[in-house]
């Protein structure tokens, strides 16, 4: 790797977007779990309910993935920012002057 770097605001924005996606997936998970299959013939209702249950779970899992992306990006941005601050403190102590001002 020859290049490393971040744009802090872009990462914050991406993290926020994934957070919203996680909320949406969680909402979908709940909605799927609550869908009524009573309009279907009884012979179909059981497998339909199983489908809803399974997909409610998938949506919940997707919410976890989105939430994980959001946290990871945010945390990474913070880590890089912290590391940058530490480096700054260290680099602030450098003196590049010559002569009496040094």
């Amino acid at each position: 790797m020859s290049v490393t770097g971040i744009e802090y605001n872009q990462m914050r924005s991406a993290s926020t977007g994934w957070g919203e996606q996680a909320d949406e997936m969680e909402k979908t998970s709940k909605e799927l779990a609550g869908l009524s299959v009573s309009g279907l013939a009884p012979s179909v209702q059981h497998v339909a309910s199983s489908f809803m249950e399974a997909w409610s779970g998938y949506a919940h899992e997707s919410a976890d993935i989105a939430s994980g992306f959001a946290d990871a990006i945010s945390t990474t941005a913070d880590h890089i920012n912290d590391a940058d601050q530490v480096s700054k403190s260290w680099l602030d102590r450098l003196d590049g002057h010559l002569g009496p001002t040094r």
Partner: protein
Amino acid sequence: MTTIAVPASEPQIAELLGDPGGAEALATSLYKAATPFETFGERASDERLISGWKGYAYEAYRDAAGSAGPEHEAMHQSVRRVARAVTFYADTLQTLKRDRDDLRDRKQRLDADRTGLLADIEAADDASASTIADLQARARDLTSRYRDLITDHDSWCRRVTDNEDQLRQSFASAKGLNGALSATGGATQDATDAMNEPGAPGGGSTPAEVKAWWDGLSAEERAAVTAAYPETIGSADGLPASARDDANRILLDDDLATLGDKEADGTLTADEKMQLANARAARDGLHRAESYVDPTTGAKPGGTLWLYDPTAFDGDGRVAVAVGDMDTADDVAVFTPGIKSEMTDTDFYTDKMTNVYESARYNGDGSSVAAMFWLGYDAPSGPTDPATLTEGRAEDGGRRLSDALDGLRASRPDEAHLTAIGHSYGSTTTAYAASEDDFAADDVVLIGSPGAGPAENADELSVGSGHVYVGRDSRDGVAMLGDEGWVGKGPIGLGTDPSSEDFGATRFEAEDVDRSSLPNFGDAHGSYLDDDTESLYNIGKIVDGHGDDVEEAEQSYDPWYSGAVDPEWDRDPTANEPGRSETGPDAT
């Protein structure tokens, strides 16, 4: 002792379980639930490249998002496929409900006849031989009708079972994550197997091969492919109109639910906004077709969504809506519109199709009729569109129209009488289609034509000059653009004016009582399909298969010593005149 065998009252009409409205509501909820999986996939793709972020951490994130994106897009398709299966189930349930009502009514009538027969037998002490023979004949007739009812009831029960089995398989196939993430996205095994059979649409099969493929599928397989692949089935030339209609209604319901939900959320993109407008236009047109009542019978001939593709042609869309039964009608008309026509005009043109239908029926010979608005080509967007001045879109549209009619022909086992009607630029498109050697129509009607494209005379159209009919209002400015004689008009028209003497088609009366004193591009060009006009009367005659009975008009011509002459200019037009311009019963 004489025995009269009175049949038992059977069958017991089975209950129909399930509620179409409830099922449709479930489908709508599933369409809504599919959308977040789609946005997840899009976000994973969009935000894999977070601007300015580079390094090992970024690469790790990119890899994770890179796998999540396609997976969630597959999940979106799986939920959507199940939603469509539920839509198909709900639509079928609605049909089954109606059919059950019919069976129940038949049974009640039979039971009433049976009760009457038993009473007559009871009262027939010392009956004469002829009375006994009459009672026996009634009993035999009743037995035959009960037997038919039993057969139809058995068939209905199988359809109920098939409908439920199909939906159960759809849910089961998409339940597991492996299936949902597979290339087939949770489609049932029946569906994927059928689509891999030779002749399946989408793989370069001819309409005849597609028809043979469809005929070889079981009812369950047909239901499976319709629910799983509605885009393919809905536009497959060669399939019965009813099959295409089933598939296209699934797509329409999907769009109305999914995009309507996005509209409510405020997340509709500009493209989706056009798509939703197109979907709503198709819905309105279809509703108009379904609501239309044939005044000659009092019955509703029904509507068909024969083509539905709301994102085609940069959002202008492709659509075809028919009034009447395209699978069984004796006479079928396909109307191609001209410039400025877009999918949002569907309701307007469907209304015109009810006029064509009504005219053909009202002045017809009793044959059944279907009239379809077909916008399967990219019509130029208006007079300022450079495409209007050239024939490229008409040529392309002609190929598409020819393919569509080939599909219609192949889809039917019988030889329906088929009429292709083109208006304005659509007449040029129709002329291009009809210039192909094997054009499937029997008769061609060109109205308000700016020129017949590649054909310099009617004989160059494959139906032959005896089957080419032309309507031109003498004030129609667009219809004056074509060449009418030995001096051409340069690049302003699109070929020879088909109403001219040189062209050699049958010109029919098409003057409008509201015509103005001067040529114009408005009413004179847009009233050919209006109620109680000469034009609609004659078009009805042609659609009904009686082109020989049109009220002929003298052709225009262009003598060497003056400009073009239209003999119809000075004739007094008629409206609502029986046998000349009356196209339906007067409104009460």
